[in-house]
């Protein structure tokens, strides 16, 4: 999958057709779609290019030191606008390198369902929230889910609640782990319907890449085997092989430039020596994720766009969604050895849809998960009332390490206007730019849904025969790996940032496609939808360019 010829290098002074900012789950796909359509593309990626042989199973470096996050920027956090935001109150987990989050994600690959696109009309408006229907439907997006699954490589098997699909999964499910077997046992005993978890990990060789070797290091780690379907070694080499796409790492964009007519002309960025460079382009696509994209738009404020680029609606940065999460554990009689193979092999969609009988809005799905990186498990894997050091601790650790599994809940976040990405008035990042400020408070219904799924998780673990179960207390979100909703798509320029083709309402030659485009956040696994949107957007943007409509 190496480029067939040396990758092209563009002189920054040359005007290329497109600058794509960000090379992650969405940016890699957009770049490939544009380049294969005959357009010239420069991808500006703020992080380095790390190739698979450099990925390691090093907990200290990869997890603790966040080596793949490459995050010198820093940001501040507050729960509500009445507080002064402070650094270090929350974790935003995303990775700055070529391939972005697609390098280190767990690779859960759930499609959204019909309901996710039309929930407001089905349920009615929810007071105090920004719950809206999407301007597109599941049917509009289905071909692009299929394209993503077949081009990137996804393993799975449809279950009883799956939305309709036009093609089967390209690959069968990964082998079930002991956690999956026990999850199935417990769920079936309760009359529920567990199914194989869809994963963007190869169960068999595919497109020149090897099958998963079951090393056990998916969540948070890059895959040295290239079995996890990251954009880094799927679509990005395809884009480069056209000879029309340059991926330029260590390029941190500080501003999107605009001319007097209000059209974007390119991007100003810091190169690896923190020297400012300008890449000129006929059009720009932002794929920086749901936190960095709105920040860049706000950083790009100008006399013509005083509230930030593409922000006449005032909606840029608002309606941030993280997805809900809960975690429970159970210990069993015999070894499960969850340190082997992929993170999750079984999932349960019985609770996907919101049910008025529960008394609150929300939906989600629990899955059978490993939690077995040795250092992390030793630090925090045992029940809270277990000894935390000494002979008693060691005894329990030895007993539990190979015998423990998790059932984690993944669920909805209501879009709230008060949950935002904005610019911090005081703190600066390592380049002297205003740092990102995150304001986020979970809706009461989001917390209720997390607790609901945790109760179901405990029931499943008990029905599976766990010797003992324990819960991670549900609390307000203090770790966010999904960054969604902050440049929402819509038909009305007064209430949304991009139209249904990801074109900014305010700027004809600016497009935005990443987690920020989502209007609702689904049930906790957004990557498949972000990538389906990227395939769809890439196709439309290329057509606009060919017709001179940029």
């Amino acid at each position, binding site marked *: 999958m190496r480029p067939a010829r040396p990758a092209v290098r563009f002189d920054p002074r040359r005007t290329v057709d497109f600058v794509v900012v960000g090379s992650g789950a969405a940016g890699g796909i957009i770049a490939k779609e544009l380049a294969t359509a005959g357009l010239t593309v420069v991808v500006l990626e703020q992080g380095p290019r790390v190739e698979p042989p450099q990925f390691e199973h090093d907990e200290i470096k990869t997890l603790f*030191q966040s080596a793949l996050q490459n995050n010198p920027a820093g940001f501040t956090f507050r729960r509500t606008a009445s507080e002064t935001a402070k650094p270090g109150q929350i974790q935003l987990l995303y990775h700055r390198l070529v391939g972005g989050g697609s390098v280190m994600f767990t690779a859960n690959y759930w499609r959204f369902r019909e309901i996710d696109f039309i929930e407001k009309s089905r349920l009615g408006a929810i007071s105090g929230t920004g719950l809206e229907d999407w301007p597109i439907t599941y049917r509009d997006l289905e071909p692009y889910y299929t394209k993503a699954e077949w081009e990137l490589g996804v393993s799975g098997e449809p279950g009883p609640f799956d939305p309709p699909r036009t093609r089967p999964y390209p690959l069968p499910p990964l082998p079930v782990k002991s956690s999956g077997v*026990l999850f199935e046992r417990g769920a079936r005993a309760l009359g529920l319907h567990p199914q194989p978890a869809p994963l963007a990990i190869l169960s068999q060789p595919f497109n020149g890449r090897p099958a998963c070797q079951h090393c056990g290091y998916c969540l948070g780690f890059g895959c040295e085997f290239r079995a996890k379907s990251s954009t880094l070694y799927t679509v990005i080499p395809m884009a480069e092989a056209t000879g029309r796409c340059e991926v330029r790492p260590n390029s941190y964009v500080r501003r999107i430039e605009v001319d007097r007519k209000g059209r974007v002309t390119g991007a100003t960025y810091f190169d690896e020596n923190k020297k400012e460079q300008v890449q000129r382009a006929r059009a720009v696509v932002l794929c920086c994720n749901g936190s960095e994209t709105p920040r860049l738009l706000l950083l790009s404020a100008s006399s013509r766009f005083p509230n930030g680029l593409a922000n006449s609606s005032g909606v840029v940065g608002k309606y941030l969604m993280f997805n809900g999460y809960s975690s429970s554990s159970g210990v069993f009689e015999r070894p499960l050895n969850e340190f082997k193979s992929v993170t999750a092999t079984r999932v349960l969609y019985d609770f996907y849809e919101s049910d008025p009988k529960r008394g609150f809005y929300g939906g989600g799905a629990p899955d059978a998960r490993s939690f077995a990186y040795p250092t992390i*498990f030793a630090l925090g*894997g045992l029940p809270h009332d277990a000894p935390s050091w000494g002979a008693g601790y060691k005894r329990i650790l*030895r007993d539990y390490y190979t015998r423990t599994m998790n059932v984690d809940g993944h669920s909805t976040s209501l879009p709230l206007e008060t949950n935002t990405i904005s610019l911090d008035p005081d703190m600066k990042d390592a380049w002297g730019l205003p740092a990102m400020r995150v304001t986020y408070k979970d809706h009461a219904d989001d917390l209720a849904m997390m607790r609901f799924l945790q109760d179901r998780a405990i029931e499943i673990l008990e029905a599976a025969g766990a010797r003992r179960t324990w819960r991670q207390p549900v609390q307000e979100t203090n770790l966010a790996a999904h960054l969604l909703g902050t440049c929402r798509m819509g038909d009305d320029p007064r209430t949304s940032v991009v139209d249904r083709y990801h074109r900014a309402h305010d700027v004809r030659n600016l497009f935005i496609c990443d987690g920020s485009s989502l209007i609702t956040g689904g049930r906790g696994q957004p990557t498949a939808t972000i990538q389906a949107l990227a395939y769809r957007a890439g196709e439309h943007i290329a057509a606009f360019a060919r017709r001179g409509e940029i």
Partner: protein
Amino acid sequence: MLADPLSRRTFLAVSSTALGAAWLAADPALVRAALDHAARAARSPLSPGSPDPVPWDVLTPDQAADLDAIAAQIFPTDDTPGAREARVVTFLDRSLGTWAAQQREPLLHGLDELNGEVERRWPGTQRFANLAPERQLELLRAQEQTPFFQQMRFATLVGMFSLPPYGGNADKAGWRVIGFEDRYAWQPPFGDYDAEAARGGR
């Protein structure tokens, strides 16, 4: 702030805790330096008490003996190896000299305070390492909510279970104790329950 540094079990949250942030917010380049250093040091004997020990990077022999004794209480030796056999103190020394350098001063200050407590409780005994094991345990139980102890717990367990090139987990002792294997390529069955299901017991 430090009473329950790991109240969230998900690994992702570990580094967001006060202790985690302090120990872990180092520059990855320094981690690389630590690994290089450890690789060099691994070529010569360096455990405390070995006949011709490699000099410690940052610890005095007394400090090394104290930290070794504390680590050995946190993860004791029983019928399987503990922190002492896993050379956690070597991990501490190497880390405090490289990627965790900013933790050196607070950690050694905490050790001084602990030894002050030793002297106060047992006049004439000046160092933790010189206490009888029962008294070591008694003292640490009284100290377990202190930032120093929590920092030592954290560092001991990281040294026990992280990659051996960091200086601890010698001969993969930590991994062998809990049943982790670093083969990194497996085929099913992975555990007893999927093996049973594959045999038709589902």
